[in-house]
């Protein structure tokens, strides 16, 4: 109440001064008025009120009021972003009530593009915007959630349910096989990791997809660019926004595993001896044994608090926000994730010509505890209780069954981890309108990240105690200088020229310490001198990028638009070919501006876009082209008991000729608005060809070094994107809108080095687990193609002769002899699946009825396969597993149960089509119901808004997939060559959230 009173006083004083001023200066008649929004009747602050044909004007105050001196014949122009501009003659009115309609078409909306802004209607490239309006009704804690399902052409995959979130974002598929496919993130002009931003601070995100939009980012643009704009204050009274939510998470479903008695029967069967007596099995049946999934999974809680204050005057505006988020893990045990964030965005107008801005963001994430190894946990012996009669751990399976690994609870409950990540980003800009048509803008900034990862495995879990202390310090400095010239070249022409110079320097320093053989658990990683053996490794690296850019935007008659850009990038990571040159061009035709369509009632917008451009990818690490000698404990030899320092040759062959990966992309787009944009349709078709692929090739082990980075081959991505926006119902009570986005991408390897037909990459999955890589990169196929034998069931009784030909017997797995040579050899391994979907989609609905709002997002993926190697392992395949624990083993083949589940001990392959499954799914990603308390009620409490909401994430998933869930498994690693392999994935969660949002 006090605030309201204060505000009234301020308003009165302010209005008084204004009135006084205008009387003194002009002596014209003062006109007063209020501007409100047509949709909710709320006053709109900051609306520009200008006397048409003059530079005189004002803006509405925080209550939507304005006062201006005008003569009766003046026409006032009211304009505000997101609303239709309204013109009104003053006439004899002294008090005006202005109602602005929201501009659904949003064609005049200003969007952020690379190194500048543009009106949406003037865009020539392919760009998708996601505004905070699209996601602010759903409780989010990660930027990826805001993008998922809401931007056509963007594939956001949740790769893990671990707290803190793990997402993979791909724009228009993966170009690179071993280089990075991560998009470039630009936050308020600054290059930074997406992890550095608090999603609640985001005003809008623009996704640049085609080459004409991304070529301006040159060597870093090939994977698409996501421009993030944070919130700023608006002039007016201070606004406070408080948002609190809290909730619980559980995994979406458990796996079908055998109970202890079934498992014991399986062990007796597979070992061919009576490991369990009939009595023991009967006891297990009566007492149940241990349900490891019950022990491994738990309910987790999470909380989020977001506070912000914003406001400003004509000269200065500010936005200050703080965020706290914490979340526990759904996999035991002491995992906790906590994030703190503080942001200040300040803008000041130093004069009519000079504006400065400073964005300041600090944050910390802390992740503690380690989770149980799910791979071990799920495959653990259910006849062994987690604890013995004394309450101590049963360290291993009592009868050494299922797996020889340690009880998964031991490490989870005893190991210590404390990872702290501190970030500071500072970003300043200076904008000088040198002349009416010439603007100089310079910006620069620093992102500093300190990573401290500390872990300790105590004596009980590691035998002798082991501590790891990693300290990594990264700084990123950038400076961008831009000159924009918009010469007046006649009424029908408009021209804008940008010239830009940019420097980016990344530095990194790291120290890694490992200490083993502790005599006590008391000091953990905090005092490594308690350890007998300490090893230290460190490294220092620097990466530089210097660029020159130019861009021309030209429009003729506001119908024919042309954009051309050119960027030259010089990078330090390449030895010889340091400079890359990246041109692009695009054309657009606003057909709806042509006379024959101009006033068409049905069709209010029709635009055709065409673009071509070349972009690059420098996705290799510092020193990536060089071979580096191997040093350290692993190569020191104790000739007489004490280690002598050794130097081993590199496992990598140097390639001084290595250079950019280049992507050429063509894009054809169509934007269509019908019935005053009640329906908006946007369609894009693209084709990208990436050549000189940066390939980290594996060499055959016998030649010596095992890896070499080369430029070779060509990958093609082509696809389409459809975005359909519809305002289905809009009246006093109802407001129903819906957005559907569909993305289809086909990925194909066109060629590889010389005459090579395939390559093996993506070693992450394999690492001592499989003798053959589950995927390979093969000419003519998508980059992640699953390899394996073709499973044809089980040899049945009566097929002894056929089976004997392959040294098999009834009960053994039957594989197709593809080449018909009478043997099952590696020549019979073929492509058995593909982890890439035919298309993915997201469908967002926003339904408001009076004070209620229901917002939900359905997402889905169609036509992708999953290699369920997790199931293979649970069926006792692979190097670590002794006995099957999976429920399928109940139905194993026996002479009396002629099923198609192999039960032979030998010759069953994990890499076979037996473990290929359809990974298509549809999920209710997020559904939120909120209630906005009536303004009448709010007034009594001095509030501007109060919203209560409840939401659910991953409420249901429709899929045939038998693993935990198809989304998390769609990418177990960030390697795009390994997409769609399910092995040790952390299942994603179903969460229920309740929250409250207060504005005052």
């Amino acid at each position, binding site marked *: 109440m006090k605030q309201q009173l204060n505000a009234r006083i301020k308003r009165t004083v302010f209005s008084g001064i204004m009135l006084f001023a205008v009387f003194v200066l002009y002596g014209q008649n003062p006109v007063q008025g209020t501007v409100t929004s047509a949709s909710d009747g709320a006053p709109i602050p900051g609306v520009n009120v200008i006397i048409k044909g003059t530079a005189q004007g004002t803006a509405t105050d925080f209550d939507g009021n304005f006062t201006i001196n005008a003569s009766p014949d003046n026409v006032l122009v009211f304009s505000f972003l997101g609303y239709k501009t309204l013109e009104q003659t003053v006439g004899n009115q002294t008090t005006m009530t202005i109602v602005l309609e929201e501009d659904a078409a949003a064609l005049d909306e200003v969007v952020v593009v690379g190194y500048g802004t543009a009106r949406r209607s003037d865009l020539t490239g392919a760009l998708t915007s996601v505004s905070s309006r699209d996601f602010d009704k759903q409780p989010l804690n990660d930027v990826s959630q805001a993008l998922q399902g809401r931007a056509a052409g963007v594939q956001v995959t949740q790769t893990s349910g671990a707290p803190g979130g793990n997402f993979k974002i791909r724009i228009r598929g993966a170009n690179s096989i071993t280089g990075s496919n991560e998009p470039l993130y630009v936050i308020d002009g600054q290059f930074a990791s997406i992890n550095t931003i608090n999603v609640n601070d985001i005003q809008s995100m623009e996704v640049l997809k085609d080459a004409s939009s991304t070529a301006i980012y040159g060597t870093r643009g090939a994977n698409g660019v996501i421009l993030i704009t944070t919130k700023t204050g608006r002039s007016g009274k201070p606004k406070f926004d408080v948002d609190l939510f809290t909730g619980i998470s559980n995994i979406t479903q458990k796996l079908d595993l055998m109970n202890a008695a079934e498992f014991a029967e399986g062990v007796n069967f*597979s*070992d*061919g001896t009576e490991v369990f007596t009939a009595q023991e099995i009967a006891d297990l049946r009566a007492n149940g044994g241990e349900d490891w999934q019950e022990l491994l999974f738990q309910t987790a809680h999470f909380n989020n608090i977001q506070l912000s204050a914003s406001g400003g005057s004509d000269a200065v505006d500010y936005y200050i926000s703080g965020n706290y988020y914490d979340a526990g893990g759904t996999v035991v045990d002491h995992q906790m994730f906590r994030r703190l964030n503080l942001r200040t965005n300040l803008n000041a107008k130093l004069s009519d010509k000079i504006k400065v801005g400073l964005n300041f963001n600090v944050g910390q994430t802390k992740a503690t505890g380690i989770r149980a190894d799910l791979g071990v946990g799920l495959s653990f012996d259910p006849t062994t209780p987690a604890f013995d009669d004394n309450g101590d751990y049963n*360290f*291993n399976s009592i*009868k050494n069954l299922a797996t*020889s690994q340690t009880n998964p609870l031991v490490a989870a409950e005893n190991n210590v981890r404390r990872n702290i990540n501190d970030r500071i980003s500072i970003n300043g800009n200076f904008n000088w309108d040198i*002349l009416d048509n010439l603007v*100089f803008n310079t910006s620069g900034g620093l992102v500093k990240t300190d990573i401290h990862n500390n872990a300790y495995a105590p004596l*009980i879990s590691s035998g*002798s105690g082991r501590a790891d202390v990693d300290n990594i310090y990264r700084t990123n400095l950038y*400076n961008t200088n831009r*000159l924009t010239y918009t010469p007046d070249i006649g009424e029908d022409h408009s021209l804008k020229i940008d*010239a*830009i110079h940019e*420097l980016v*320097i990344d530095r990194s320093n790291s120290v890694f310490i490992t200490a*083993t053989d502790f005599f006590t658990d008391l000091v953990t990683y905090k005092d490594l001198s308690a350890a007998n053996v300490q090893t230290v490794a460190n490294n220092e690296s*620097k990466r530089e990028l*210097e660029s020159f850019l130019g861009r021309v935007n030209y429009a003729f008659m506001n119908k024919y638009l042309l954009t051309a850009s050119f960027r030259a990038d*010089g990078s330090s*990571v390449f030895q010889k070919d*340091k400079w890359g040159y990246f041109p692009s061009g695009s054309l657009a035709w606003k057909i709806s501006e042509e006379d024959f369509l101009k006033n068409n009632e049905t069709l209010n917008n029709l635009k055709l876009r065409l673009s071509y451009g070349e972009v690059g990818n420098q996705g290799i690490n*510092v*020193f990536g082209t*060089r*071979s580096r*000698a191997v040093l350290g404990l692993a*190569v*020191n*030899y*104790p*000739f*007489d008991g*004490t*280690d*002598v320092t*050794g*130097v081993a*040759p590199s496992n990598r062959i140097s390639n001084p000729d290595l250079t950019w990966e280049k992507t050429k992309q063509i894009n054809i787009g169509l934007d269509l608005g019908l019935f005053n944009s009640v329906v908006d349709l946007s369609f894009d078709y693209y084709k990208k060809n990436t050549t000189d692929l940066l390939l980290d090739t*594996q060499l055959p*082990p*016998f*030649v*010596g*070094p095992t890896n070499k980075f080369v430029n070779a081959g060509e990958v093609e991505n082509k696809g389409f994107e459809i975005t359909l926006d519809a305002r289905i119902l809009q009246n006093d009570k109802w407001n129903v809108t819906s957005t559907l986005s569909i993305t289809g991408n086909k990925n194909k390897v066109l060629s590889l080095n010389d005459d090579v037909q395939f390559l*093996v990459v993506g070693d992450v999955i394999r690492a001592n687990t499989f*003798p*053959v890589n589950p995927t390979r990169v093969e000419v003519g196929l998508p980059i992640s193609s699953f390899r394996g034998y073709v499973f044809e069931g089980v040899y049945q009784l009566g097929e002894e002769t056929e089976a004997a030909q392959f*040294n098999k017997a009834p009960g053994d797995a039957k594989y197709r002899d593809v080449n018909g040579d009478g043997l099952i*050899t*590696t020549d019979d*391994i073929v492509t058995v699946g593909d982890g890439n979907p035919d298309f993915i989609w997201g469908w967002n609905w926003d339904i408001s009825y009076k004070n209620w709002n229901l917002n939900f997002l359905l997402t889905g993926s169609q036509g992708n396969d999953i290699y369920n190697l997790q199931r293979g392992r649970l069926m*006792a395949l692979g*190097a*670590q597993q*002794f*006995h099957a624990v999976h429920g399928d083993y109940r139905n194993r083949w026996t002479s009396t149960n002629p099923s198609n589940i192999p039960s032979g001990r*030998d*010759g069953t392959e994990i890499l076979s089509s037996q473990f290929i499954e359809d990974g298509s799914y549809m999920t209710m990603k997020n559904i939120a119901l909120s209630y906005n308390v009536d303004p009448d009620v709010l007034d009594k409490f001095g509030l501007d808004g109060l919203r209560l909401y409840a939401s659910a994430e991953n409420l249901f998933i429709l899929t045939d997939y038998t693993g935990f869930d198809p989304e998390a498994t769609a990418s177990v690693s960030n390697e795009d060559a390994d997409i769609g392999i399910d092995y040790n994935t952390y299942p994603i969660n179903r969460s229920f959230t309740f929250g409250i949002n207060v504005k005052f």
Partner: protein
Amino acid sequence: MNRIYNILFLFGMVMLVNVSCLDLEEDTSSLLQVGQIASEADIEANISPIYISVRRTNNDPHFLRTATYGADDITTWIAGNKAPLRVFDRFDYGSGENSDINWLPVAWDNYWRTIYYCNTLIEGLKTATASEALVKLADAEARVFRAHAYLNLVKIYGNVPLILDGYLPTGEEQRATVLENYQQIESDLLIAEVSLPTPGSESTGRASAGFAKTVLADLYLTWAGWPVKDNSKYAMAAAKAKEVIDYNHYTLLPIEELWTFEGAMSTETVFSVRYPADESRWGSQGTAFTFHQGRGFSDCFPELRFFNDFPEGPRKDYTFLLDIPNRNAPGGVITPRNPPTIPWEDSDRGHPMYRKYVFAEDLTVISRPVNFRPYDLYRYAEVLLIYAEAQARVGENASSIEALNQVKRRAAGLPYSVPNATVDVATATPNEIVDEKGWELAAENKRWFDLVRTERVAEMAAKRDPSEPVTLVRMPTSAQYIAPIPFESISLSKLVQNPEGFKIQ
């Protein structure tokens, strides 16, 4: 006009500002160049990884021996995760199948890594500035390990490509013939035996000329048998083994000392790999050779027929463990269960264990039995038996019979150099000597290669105990004498898989 000039000036300024501020060069001062071997210190530092590589190769005997399970001295668990070992125990290979199983590439990858390290050193030494004596010594050391790695590769997989010092990968590599491989190995060893120090004068833990000559004797013995069958090499094997004997440096330890920690750094040791005194690294022999009941992995244990045929006596007592340890590890600490041992017939694997690899086990480091005992690549008993057999092939003599009898005497717990009528023989057929070698070196990764070169794999398979849980899918023929080349190398190169790619000469 001024205005336009100003604009142009500003454009120019923007484009030129900081132009030469970044040099875009990587600071490589933190990088150690590969193959930069000049000084004495460089040489020493480049030798260390070779020894590390040899130790890593022998660290996990179950992995290393995957392709040798066809031998009659070892078998494996019928169930669990041992399917790759059973492939070879059952002879389920020979026509290119099962080249993509786990653990088969371990020996391949390890031996080739050693070769790469040796090649890098040999190449770097060509321009080294250190003293000639040191360069020659280092060159000899690299050659003996390169030769040893090649010999093992050829024994396991047949003929392999010749990748030597100064080689750059082309993608066009092809397999040489077995004979070419042998000739290369021989040429390296002939250089090494000259430059390496005589046994006893080498630095602690380093290779000596005795080691080079022993590998050479082993090469000639192999050369004389399958597949090249050049009988003239028997005499060379005998002569080379005799040179080792004639150093008068090596001895046989009393049987009760042989498997102690010190036993692998004694005068019986021709060459062994070492573990650091700070116990930061250890070997997994104990884990591989212990049953799960005793906190091991049940990878490797004797076949029943081999155990039953093994002559009684002290050597048998030190070779096999009949009371199987029964342990658990509450809290991660190995602790005996009650009863602490179980008779082998009632144990979880129903076989005896190999005692020689658990004799010096350490139960206190982790929750599995591990070893710090150095691991012998060759010990003197083998030299004596190579000599005895090779000489017997060309005509036995008193000294070759004495060599055999020395081994027999020690096996009986007697002083080995004192003739003893209770164990001494007056004559022995080559096969009898091979069998004596099988017993003496049981599970020491020798028996399979002896059976292959003497073409006696089928003979032993036919005698397999019918109660052995792992049953054969076929009677082995020469098709089973070599393992398939691991699939990764076949798929990434132009090498031709066995049997098509197997070329003798």
